């Protein structure tokens, strides 16, 4: 029994402390982003050189490929991942736990970045607000990267008279664009907003597992680097859904993709665990489920789906990796593997993942609308029912991506059923939005204006989704540009614009400054118009019969592709303007008050910037959320009206 002599004053109570080893923070004082880079690059270099030396020259892998690039690149990736995480101090926590050196309060405060200033953004910092900001920046970087690739793709497709890039490079463009955007969209709400806002929103002092929080972010960073590195090793030439055996023909860049997914899935799993536990166990006193804001429900649902779905994706890539390196044969039909196995494993993630993206950004809207209409959310229970319904069905619809694979034509019937059923809970969410708009007095600010864009796109995405959910129609649409346009309407039109609304809404709380309304709106609406042009004409191209992922096509499709490309450039400009608005407002924006929107929700009651421990004393929730509005004007005349109504009724 270690007798705790020292005590520390934690929020007013004297708490006995374990022995303090050295200065608060211990070795973490020396570890930061720099040491991480040193560790990562160093270990990567060493591993690469060693592997290179160990690989006999001229040796080939089991599939006749030159062995050296494969093994060296894999070793470099592993070295980078492990080295960086070690260098930044991700392994210190578990080691301390094994050694039994529990954190003292001082240690914890140091690791949460107390009095570290800007340095805390470049350390293994556990404070959820720091992680939120890190995620915000990282999201913008990843989305920017994906957008850059999108511009290149549209350039290639717009130039119908020549090949701008070689076909292999074009294929790696679409693959990398796809996976970069998917990653970016998964974290765009679950990263910044969920990490920064949700703990404050539920009246907690931090996440349940602060170190896991930091871990999830830095794993994401590491994964992003792996993805970018793959572009230099031949890229991901097989689309973001790397179908096998095509993926088994790819150059070594495929290893980068596989490593990215394995690490990213780990990051998402860790983040999901953290968010779910936080929401389940750390809500403020009195915050019953009926008093919990909808963003919390949305984030919880998203985390739940990510929790059960991502391991399938991760394992599909682990199996693929072992196929490539150890010559096992999971996805290799020559040796008893099955291409349908991969498709099933992949889409077992692939479809829940769509809702992992959509639901949080829909939930953000539910937060925004009541504030700007000064009106309670219309039918709170209905919104919850919608989210629950989506979660319940999300796991039962994956095979609608496989209608045309012929793996089991009989199951097309049930999957068509479940897929079209999911339009009902999604419809609930739409009803909640327009019901809240009903007879409301709207305060026309950027966040709420974005909501209009989102609902418009969501309707179009949803209706086109109904075509695709129908097997006969899918027999024409599957694998055509129509599909591309549809899921861009869902993921970008509904997801990304919703996330932009959320960022605009929470910007004052996160950065302490107001988002420049004028510039932001210009950017948003430019992007919106460009979006309609791009994907509207892409629908046409798909209906005309243009397959997706082609770089040359019949000149029947030329016109729609030219229009698409023009629209795409418009989106690019618009997004850059919005990004510029964010950067400039972050640097020079007007100082924001602690509650600029006059919201009644908990996170806006904290001072800005939010203090390290969020709340000096933990709050107690006593009323339902969204308690805005005045009694219905008709209420007063009620009895009188009913009185003479009766006469009329006779």
């Amino acid at each position, binding site marked *: 029994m270690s007798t705790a002599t020292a005590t520390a004053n934690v929020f007013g109570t004297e708490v006995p402390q374990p022995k303090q080893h050295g200065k608060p923070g211990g070795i973490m004082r020396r570890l930061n982003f720099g040491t991480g880079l040193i560790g990562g690059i160093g270990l990567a270099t060493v591993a690469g050189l060693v592997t290179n030396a160990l690989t006999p020259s001229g040796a080939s892998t089991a599939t006749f490929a030159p062995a050296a690039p494969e093994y060296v690149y894999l070793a470099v990736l592993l070295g980078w991942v492990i080295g960086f995480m070690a260098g930044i101090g991700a392994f210190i926590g578990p080691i301390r736990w094994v050694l039994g050196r529990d954190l003292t309060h001082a240690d914890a405060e140091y690791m949460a970045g107390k009095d570290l200033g800007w340095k805390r953004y470049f350390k293994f910092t556990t404070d959820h607000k720091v992680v939120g900001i890190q995620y915000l920046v990282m999201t913008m970087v990843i989305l920017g990267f994906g957008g850059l690739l999108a511009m290149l793709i549209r350039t290639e497709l717009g130039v119908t008279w020549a090949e701008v890039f070689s076909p292999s490079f074009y294929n790696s463009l679409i693959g990398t664009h796809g996976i970069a955007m998917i990653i970016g969209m998964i974290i765009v709400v679950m990263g910044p907003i969920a990490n920064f806002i949700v703990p404050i929103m539920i009246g907690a002092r931090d996440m349940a597992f602060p170190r896991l929080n930091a871990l999830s972010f830095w794993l994401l960073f590491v994964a992003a680097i792996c993805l970018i590195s793959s572009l230099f090793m031949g890229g991901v030439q097989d689309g973001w859904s790397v179908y096998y055996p095509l993926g088994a023909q790819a150059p070594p860049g495929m290893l980068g993709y596989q490593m990215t997914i394995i690490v990213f899935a780990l990051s998402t799993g860790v983040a999901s665990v953290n968010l779910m536990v936080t929401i389940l166990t750390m809500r403020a006193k009195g915050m019953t489920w009926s008093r919990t804001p909808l963003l919390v429900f949305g984030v919880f649902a998203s985390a739940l789906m990510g929790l059960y779905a991502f391991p399938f994706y991760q394992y599909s890539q682990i199996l693929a990796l072992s196929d490539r390196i150890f010559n096992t044969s999971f996805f290799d039909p020559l040796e008893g593997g099955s291409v349908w196995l991969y498709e099933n494993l992949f889409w077992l993630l692939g479809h829940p993942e769509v809702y992992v993206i959509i639901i949080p950004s829909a939930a953000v809207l539910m937060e925004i609308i009541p504030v700007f209409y000064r009106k309670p959310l219309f039918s709170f229970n209905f919104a919850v029912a919608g989210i629950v319904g989506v979660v319940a069905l999300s796991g039962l619809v994956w095979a609608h991506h496989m209608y045309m694979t012929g793996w089991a034509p009989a199951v097309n019937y049930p999957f068509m059923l479940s897929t079209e059923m999911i339009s009902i809970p999604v419809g609930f969410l739409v009803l909640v939005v327009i019901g809240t708009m009903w007879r409301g007095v709207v305060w026309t600010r950027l966040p709420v204006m974005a909501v209009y864009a989102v609902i418009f796109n969501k309707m179009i995405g949803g209706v086109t989704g109904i075509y695709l959910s*129908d097997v006969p129609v899918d027999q024409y649409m599957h694998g055509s540009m129509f599909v591309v346009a549809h899921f861009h309407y869902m993921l970008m039109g509904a997801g990304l614009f919703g996330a932009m609304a959320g960022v605009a809404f929470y910007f004052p709380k996160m950065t302490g400054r107001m988002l420049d309304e004028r510039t932001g709106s210009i950017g948003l609406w430019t992007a919106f118009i460009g979006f309609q042009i791009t994907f509207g004409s892409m629908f046409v191209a798909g209906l005309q019969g243009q397959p997706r992922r082609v770089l040359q096509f019949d000149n029947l499709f030329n016109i729609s592709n030219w229009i698409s490309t023009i629209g795409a450039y418009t989106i690019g400009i618009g997004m850059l303007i919005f990004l510029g608005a964010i950067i400039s407002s972050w640097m020079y924006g007007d100082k924001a008050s602690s509650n600029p929107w006059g919201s009644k929700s908990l996170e806006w009651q904290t001072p800005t910037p939010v203090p390290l421990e969020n709340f000096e004393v933990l709050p107690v929730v006593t009323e339902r959320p969204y308690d805005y509005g005045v009694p219905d004007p008709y209420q007063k005349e009620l009895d009188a009206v009913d009185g003479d109504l009766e006469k009329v*009724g006779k």
Partner: protein
Amino acid sequence: MSTTDVRPTGQPDEPEAPTNRPPSMHRVKMWIRRPYARWIMVLTVLIGFLLMPLAWLLLAAMNQTGAPASEVMKDIEQTVFVFTMVSIPITAFVFAVLVYSLLGWKHVSGDTPPEDESPAIRSNTIGVVLWTVVSSVLAFFLVVWGLAELAQITANSYGTIPADEQPEDKQALIVNVTGQQWVWTFEYPQYDGLTTETLYLAKDRPVYFNVTSKDVIHNFWAVELGVKIDANPGAITQTGVTPNKTGTFNVRCAELCGMHHAYMETAIQVLEPKAFNSWAREMGGGKTS
């Protein structure tokens, strides 16, 4: 217009109505008298009619290269048409509310949060029930229609017969389709293994495809015939169709299959039965088996 000039009438926004409630029909009548209710209805109808042409435009886009060239394709286009028509009303309603909430109901601007003046409507039983019922009915209709169509298309295209069985129709033409990076080859077993790289079919003669691949997954898409099925390595997938139009149509690969995926295309020549047989004979296909 704003909510203030609305003459107070029945009150459908109250979750549970008082005991001495007026007859519901009458309440609806009075509700409809509210300006915004009328406006939204008008807008809905207006937008609905504006959206209606889409139903034909979609088909126009699909028919640019000679579709529909088969019953299957006809069914597909019919489904597209019906689904568009079905989804127009609800879309129009949502858009109408969006438009009206911007132009009709009051809006304020400024930097400071405005006073609360919106009615605190927490729910509305009638609205919720109505929405749920309508959307469920629509979804149910889509499902039923879809299942029926699917059954019919499966019938038209022989569905999926076990690989080792003959198609019921002995007259049916059998074509073994092989996808291979990045060329399609078509084998006619009934014409002693005649193989071509362009697909030749006979008008009004059912054709039955055994589709497989030598290497990676391809997708055999006979665009104007409305036929699409993956060509999987290690498996044989089956589909079929009856072309009812002579002419030149397209086969495209609809599944990313490597560098020259975009170039994995070929033509379909649908000939009159006589012309088809003579073509087969001169290609050395011998007599029909």
